């Protein structure tokens, strides 16, 4: 018999509402709450041997301790599959479900599965770590969520191949799987275009990532005293590319001192970027990051100063997730260094 351990919060565990959200993790033999309905869906192929119950606030405020405690409890039952939720659109519950699925997968190396609403913050944080089945935004969706979970778990038990997110009802994890299509790409592309022109429904084969928009920052009021920094995705690096920034799909960014340079030259700088003809940038990197102009603008009193460091990476094929992470790190340092404005150049 396949053994399952189920994770739920204090509310579904019947302990209580918000006032019991600090409840420390405990484990009970057998099914509790939604586990009953889920168990019925498994049709005797698997058994929920134990249920972990933990308060949402406790989990989120003590995430490391909570994970350690829950892992220890789960381990004792030596389960084959771990299930958390469904969490619907409950934010802390969703984050807890995602985090504990990730921890169980890493520590016990068993399949983990949870279910929640696509906008639950737990999705963005843990969608790569667990199959997250899509649910509606409230517990009213329980009637549909449990059969979906049951069906998915049954597939796992039978070692059936898990299909695409659309087929199986889980939230896309950003994983691409190669397969052979009978029709060539150009024919499929023209079909899509024709559908689009006709205003018909079509499904893209390559969804674009979603980009965040942020409100424009207030303008610089005192440019004559402002400290300006340069950041670029054009791959300008000191000659020789000392940190070996990759020519595409960069895994890192560089931070380089330009305090000693009034002008970038063929001898001092070059580009590491592999996505454009590097001839012109290698001859004169000021064509990508205008160090010569900004130096003179400091002398002329147009700007207060040029920050001593510039930040750089190659922007071609670089993942949005990496770019976002580096952007946040770079912005934090720039703010800490008293930079007032940034000129970002891209090739």
């Amino acid at each position, binding site marked *: 018999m396949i053994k399952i351990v189920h994770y739920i919060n204090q509310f579904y565990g019947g302990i209580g509402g918000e006032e019991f959200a600090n409840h420390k993790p405990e484990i009970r033999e057998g099914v509790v709450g939604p586990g009953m309905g889920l168990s019925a869906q498994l049709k005797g192929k698997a058994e929920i041997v134990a249920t972990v119950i933990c308060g949402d606030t406790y989990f989120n405020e003590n995430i490391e301790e909570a994970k350690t405690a829950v892992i220890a409890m789960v381990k004792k039952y030596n389960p084959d599959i771990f299930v958390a939720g469904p969490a619907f659109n409950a934010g802390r519950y969703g984050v807890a479900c995602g985090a504990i699925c990730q921890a169980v997968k890493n520590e016990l190396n068993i399949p983990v599965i949870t279910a929640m609403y696509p906008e639950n913050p737990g999705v963005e944080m843990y969608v790569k770590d667990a199959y997250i089945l899509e649910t509606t935004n409230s517990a009213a969706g329980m009637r549909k969520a449990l059969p979906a979970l049951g069906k998915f778990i049954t597939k796992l038990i039978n070692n059936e191949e898990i299909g695409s997110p659309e087929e199986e009802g889980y939230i896309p994890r950003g994983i691409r799987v190669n397969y052979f299509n009978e029709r060539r790409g150009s024919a499929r592309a023209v079909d899509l275009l024709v559908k689009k022109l006709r205003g018909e429904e079509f499904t893209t084969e390559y969804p*674009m990532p979603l980009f965040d928009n942020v409100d424009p920052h207030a*303008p610089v009021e005192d440019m004559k005293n402002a400290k300006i920094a340069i950041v670029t995705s054009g791959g300008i690096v000191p000659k020789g590319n000392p940190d070996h920034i990759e020519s595409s799909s960069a895994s890192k960014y560089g931070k380089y001192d330009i305090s000693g340079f009034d002008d970038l030259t063929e001898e001092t700088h070059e580009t590491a970027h592999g996505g454009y003809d590097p001839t012109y940038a290698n001859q004169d990197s*000021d064509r990508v990051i*205008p160090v010569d102009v900004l130096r003179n603008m400091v002398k002329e009193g147009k700007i207060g100063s040029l920050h001593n460091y510039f930040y750089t990476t190659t922007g071609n094929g670089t993942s949005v997730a990496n770019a976002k992470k580096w952007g946040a790190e770079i912005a934090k340092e720039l703010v800490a260094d008293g930079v007032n404005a940034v000129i*970002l150049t*891209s090739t």
Partner: protein
Amino acid sequence: MCTITPISLTVGANRIVPTVAIPHPLGNPSLPRDKEYKLRYALVEKALKALQTEITEQTIFE
């Protein structure tokens, strides 16, 4: 500062200054050095102006 401004719009940049070409956004190798420098200077001036301009939405500073 970038040449392919539709990309900057897509990724959410707010103050956008169009530049010369992908491999040399802030230069033009076909110009003599002094004229190329002037071109670059004018583009950076435009960027400084953009940074000092109050905006409420994504704006391309032509």
